[in-house]
């Protein structure tokens, strides 16, 4: 580990080094300048450094974003085999930070837990325990999370061969210890019930174990992983472009945004820019996907609390948007429309008129739902004051996106770090302060209107013609006409298909605003044909982790409403 003073740094990292110098452990923290300012610390120092980073008034990295384990067994140039890579965010300064905890070789990989510093770390550490076998001494509930209890081995280690099967039977199901004990509240008996895994209100397959004291939930725990397919391991065994269809299946309600987030990360690593027209198509379709995501979220949420009509009204705009996506790329749900360096195919001729027609029709449906729901007394009673998440809780639990904004923090990636054209458009970030289900509903409703506003402005500057993809044929497939008739193009085509894109050695964390919150991808390349490691930061993962704490004290009916407004998408939750 190099000492703090020796390396020349960019201004951002230099600033960070000045801040770190105030820490008593400064001499033992290395500052490295990668795509993000990066600290390297040893496991023993980590909890103290974590506290310093969170509490120091000039650091204030208060939001825990992500924990990615890395196995360096097949990679050169790293000091030890295992690393735990943390990504943190300072909300007050809109600044990201990476911390690498380098785990020494020899003993089994272990680092102290930081789940007391950032409660959001709890589930991320369980995930690293599960997938990498990292031990976190002091963790309150260190059990497998995504893989089932009969699973053997740690799938994301490089020596774990994919394709192994471990069978799970009912006997292997491990309920939490407290579920077996008897508890009494006064002279009344409490009872433990299971909601799910297959329950219509869990939208996906989520197992909620709740101890009921009368109507109230006294204690709860969620078990997930029923839809885990280890997307990250699959990405490691495929090429960079081949991971795009897998990304569609993360948040399948707004598949387009996932693809954009992923390819942006790879494009940053390659250092290529895509043409304006391509960027605008991505922006327009991403915003339409955001509307679709919120429509599905609000629609199904209202069905859960008994208001079916709105579901039909909100699914009609979604149908129109699906039609538009299908006309562009040939699929409604799993679009696979983006490619590294651009888009698979140019938009159809009637793209702009179709978008304009949608812009005309969508507000009518939103107005109808607004009229039926927003000032409806029953909805008000079900939503207002239930599922409350305070500002501090939302930050501590690692919320991003609409739920964080509904708790009073105006953090939106499109505003804090405008990508594509978001800084040129005139739009507002909707926030609310109550942090309850009603606030989350209001924020989503307003966000849809803001998205329409963004699309309207994007269409105004949308060029009538022009390329949608980069012309770098080391990255993008040459046009078919050239491939058929020109030898050189055919060679580029052949090299790209057979060998894949060559991404320079390095690592990158890149983030955009998903429909659910900050959608991050942390990619490492070793120069091979595919990602060496790809970590996806699922926005709904920390929210699901906090869910079992939010619902305590309320009845089951409130828990169902809360599950809906947090917008849990199993595909991205369990990857």
């Amino acid at each position, binding site marked *: 580990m190099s000492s703090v003073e020796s390396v020349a740094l960019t201004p951002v990292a230099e600033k960070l080094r000045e801040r770190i110098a105030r820490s008593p452990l400064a001499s033992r923290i290395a500052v490295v300048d990668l795509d993000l300012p990066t600290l390297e610390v040893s496991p023993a120092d980590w909890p103290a450094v974590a506290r310093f980073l969170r509490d120091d008034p000039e650091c204030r990295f208060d939001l825990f974003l992500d924990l990615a384990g890395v196995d360096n067994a097949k990679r050169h140039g790293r000091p030890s085999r295992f690393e735990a890579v943390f990504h943190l965010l300072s909300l007050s300064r809109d600044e990201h930070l990476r911390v690498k905890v380098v785990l020494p070789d020899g003993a089994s990989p272990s680092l102290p837990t930081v789940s007391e510093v950032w409660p959001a770390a709890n589930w991320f550490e369980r995930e690293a325990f599960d997938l990498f076998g990292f031990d976190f001494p002091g963790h309150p509930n260190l059990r497998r999370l995504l893989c089932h209890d009969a699973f053997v081995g740690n799938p994301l280690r490089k020596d774990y061969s994919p394709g192994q099967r471990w069978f799970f039977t009912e006997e292997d199901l491990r309920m939490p210890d407290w579920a077996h004990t008897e508890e009494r509240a006064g002279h009344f008996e409490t009872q433990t019930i299971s909601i799910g895994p297959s329950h219509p209100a869990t939208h996906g397959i989520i197992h909620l174990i709740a101890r009921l004291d009368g109507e109230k939930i006294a204690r709860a725990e969620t078990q997930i992983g029923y839809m885990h397919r280890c997307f990250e391991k699959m990405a490691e*065994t*495929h090429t960079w*472009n*081949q*991971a*795009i*269809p*897998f990304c569609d299946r993360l948040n399948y309600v707004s598949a387009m945004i996932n693809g954009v987030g992923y390819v942006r990360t790879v494009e940053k690593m390659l250092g290529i820019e895509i043409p304006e027209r391509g960027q605008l198509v991505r922006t327009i379709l991403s915003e339409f996907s955001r509307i679709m995501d919120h429509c599905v979220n609000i629609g199904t949420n209202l069905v859960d609390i008994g208001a079916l*009509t709105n579901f039909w*009204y909100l699914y*009609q705009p979604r*149908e129109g948007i699906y039609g538009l996506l*299908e*006309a*562009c*790329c*040939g*699929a409604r749900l*799993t679009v*696979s429309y983006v490619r590294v360096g651009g888009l*698979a*195919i140019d938009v*159809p001729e009637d793209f702009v008129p179709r978008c304009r027609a949608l812009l005309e029709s969508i507000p009518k449906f939103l107005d*109808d739902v607004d*009229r*039926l729901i*927003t*000032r*409806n*007394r029953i909805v*008000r009673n079900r939503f*207002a004051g239930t599922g409350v998440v305070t500002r501090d809780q939302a930050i501590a639990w690692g919320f991003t996106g609409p739920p964080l904004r509904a708790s009073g923090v*105006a953090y939106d990636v499109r*505003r804090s770090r*405008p990508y594509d054209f978001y*800084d*040129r*458009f005139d739009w*507002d*970030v*909707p*926030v*609310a*302060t*109550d942090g309850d289900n009603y*606030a989350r509903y*209001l*924020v989503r*409703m*307003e966000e849809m209107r803001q998205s329409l506003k963004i699309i309207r402005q994007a269409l105004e500057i949308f060029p009538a013609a022009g390329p949608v993809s980069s012309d770098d044929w080391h990255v993008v497939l040459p*046009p*078919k*006409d050239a*491939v*058929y*008739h020109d030898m050189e193009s*055919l060679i580029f085509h*052949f090299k790209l*298909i*057979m060998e894949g894109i060559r991404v320079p050695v390095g690592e990158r964390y890149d983030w955009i605003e998903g429909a659910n919150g900050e959608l991050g991808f942390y990619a490492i390349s070793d120069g091979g044909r595919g990602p060496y490691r790809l970590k996806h930061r699922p926005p709904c993962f920390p929210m699901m982790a906090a869910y079992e704490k939010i619902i305590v004290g309320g009845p089951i009916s409130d828990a169902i409403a809360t599950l809906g407004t947090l917008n849990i998408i199993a595909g991205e939750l369990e990857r």
Partner: protein
Amino acid sequence: MSGVVDVGVKQPRKLTVLERLYIPEIVKGMGVTIRHLLRNIARIRNLPTILYPERRRDYSDRFRGKHILTTRADGTLKCVACYMCAEACPAECITIVAGEHPKIAYEKYPVVFDIDMLRCVFCGFCVDACPKDALWMTGNYEMAFFNREEAVFGIDKLIAKQGLPVKDGLGYRPYYPGDGTRPPGDASSSPVIPGDGEREILREKGLDLHHTEGPGPLNAASLAADRRGR
């Protein structure tokens, strides 16, 4: 750029007396639903929900459905068994066994070309990968099987039937009519095509440069083992 809007403030927490009385709100709500009802009766033939399978949704001509193997003018497959679609496939659902074509101009052809429709994710990467314009997709999305073997579509199910319309129309393909690109030249129309049996004559004279010993097609079992080992 613009500011931040507090949506909580726009919606006062307290409901008015009228709103709390239920009845006026119910009337207002019924107004919305009855308007939808009347509008839907007026456009009964054009509802957002459709009576499938009697009526079908119109999909664009980019729809990514069942694949189709295109043919040359003489009815042979355009595919030259180059394995590029199999290599590009993220689901690894394409199995090709290459053979030596009797016509030298065609060089290679697929003896086996299987797509496992249960594995396929319909991403269209195979269509993008094909350098010979040999693999397209169609608008056909109705593929029901009684068992897994049936779900593996071979050449017989994938080949474009000469003179017959494609079921549900063409879908995702490398170029569309009028987009200015040219299809690849057809080897059968090229002036120098040695005919059937020409290869045999060349072989007898010792002039065939291609490897001629042993069976043409690769061993399917070793190919499958190779794919598994990857």
